[in-house]
């Protein structure tokens, strides 16, 4: 049973740890690093509740091995708030009721965070396409779209 020493930088903090080859990145984050904001919702890479940014790209952390993240940067929902200031997306989800049970929310936030860094003024269609790998059962998606549009507008003003 091979184990590896890896260094994964999460939200700017490097973590040195020893992991089994088969350890999934999502379990590294949740169980070892106790960053439980990233969630697990399925076992077939469909639901996207586990979405994190890997070197800035949104990926499903249940389908990435922890060893693949060695030497790389991971961003999770816990890293969105900076110095007590919420990210405009977090504000948008709050303002526009873009969440109900909150379980898919971290995944939605990370995916849309990446979206807004690439597309500053996404249309409703762009947003729906971007989050098509993130399932939500509670909201019917309407208000998630509104939340992202709110954030885009806020970020546009702040730019």
């Amino acid at each position: 049973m091979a184990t590896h020493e890896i260094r994964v930088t999460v939200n700017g903090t490097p973590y040195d740890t020893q992991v089994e080859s088969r350890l999934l990145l999502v379990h590294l984050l949740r169980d070892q690093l106790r960053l439980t904001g990233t969630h697990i919702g399925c076992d077939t890479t469909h639901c996207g509740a586990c979405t994190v940014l890997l070197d800035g790209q949104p990926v499903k952390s249940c389908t990435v091995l922890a060893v693949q993240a060695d030497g790389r940067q991971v961003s999770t929902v816990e890293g969105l708030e900076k110095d007590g200031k919420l990210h405009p997306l977090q504000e948008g989800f709050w303002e526009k009721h873009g969440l109900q049970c909150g379980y898919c929310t971290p995944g939605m936030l990370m995916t849309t965070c990446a979206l807004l860094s690439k597309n500053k003024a996404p249309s409703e269609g762009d947003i729906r396409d971007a989050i098509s790998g993130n399932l939500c059962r509670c909201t019917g998606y309407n208000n998630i779209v509104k939340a992202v549009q709110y954030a885009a507008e806020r970020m546009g003003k702040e730019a």
Partner: protein
Amino acid sequence: MIPASFDYHAPGTLPEALALLSRYGDDAKVLSGGQSLLPLLKLRLGQTGHLIDIGRIPGLEYVREEAGLLRIGGRTRESALEASEVIRARYPILHDTAKVIADPLVRNMATIGGNLAHGDPGNDHPATMIALGAQVVATGPKGERVIPIEQFFLGLFRTALRPDEVLTEIRIPVPPARSGGAYLKLERKVGDYATAAAAAQLTLGSDGAVERVGLALTNVGPTPIKAADAEKFLTGKRPDAANVGEAAQRAARAASPSADRRGSVEYKREMARVLTARALKLAVERAGGR
């Protein structure tokens, strides 16, 4: 959703990777994007003793046109293909294809090499590569082999890639002027495999007739299906509604779908026909015809 144990290797060069593959043979698998392999391992539907991660090897991700070929590195991410301006402008069939693979998150990890090498008839690139007349470059301990795409898919989850080879490059001939292509996929929802999909790439002559056409189908057989009879029929003819309709009929006849929750044999075959006709129509439009 927890894989059985395996050993993991992250070689820094291709020769190292190939040496590991030679060493472990059937007990090793290549980890590229991992978006097909890891789900299998997590469900314990596949087993492997050794995962050879080619993700640390430089020089395997690129998209460039040179010397009459579009060359794509085997480890190029689907999202990179989707975002590529060259591909969007000059290979719309490939842009269509990249856009409908799984979902945007999976596309950030999934690679074109993996999509081809996995041998899953449900994967989308194979049909498109057949329509484009592509070649696959397999690199092994003894060097490179160039495999024409029609010889690459051997059966269900079986390709011409040997256990000690890595798919390092895809080569697509730069289409001549008056060329167009399209990939149309019928799926039950975003992220699904195709109920059926059709890839059409053609070049029109100055007289408006079809000079060359590549037609292939996704997920309606144990491998991607090259609609050779349909191609033969359409070559040299004008792509009007009647001829396109007949080509689509012939393409459907080449399909041998299996029934599953996506559809019955009859429905899938008919969808192959409908999608082929629509893909041809769109390809013709994009080629500047009509």
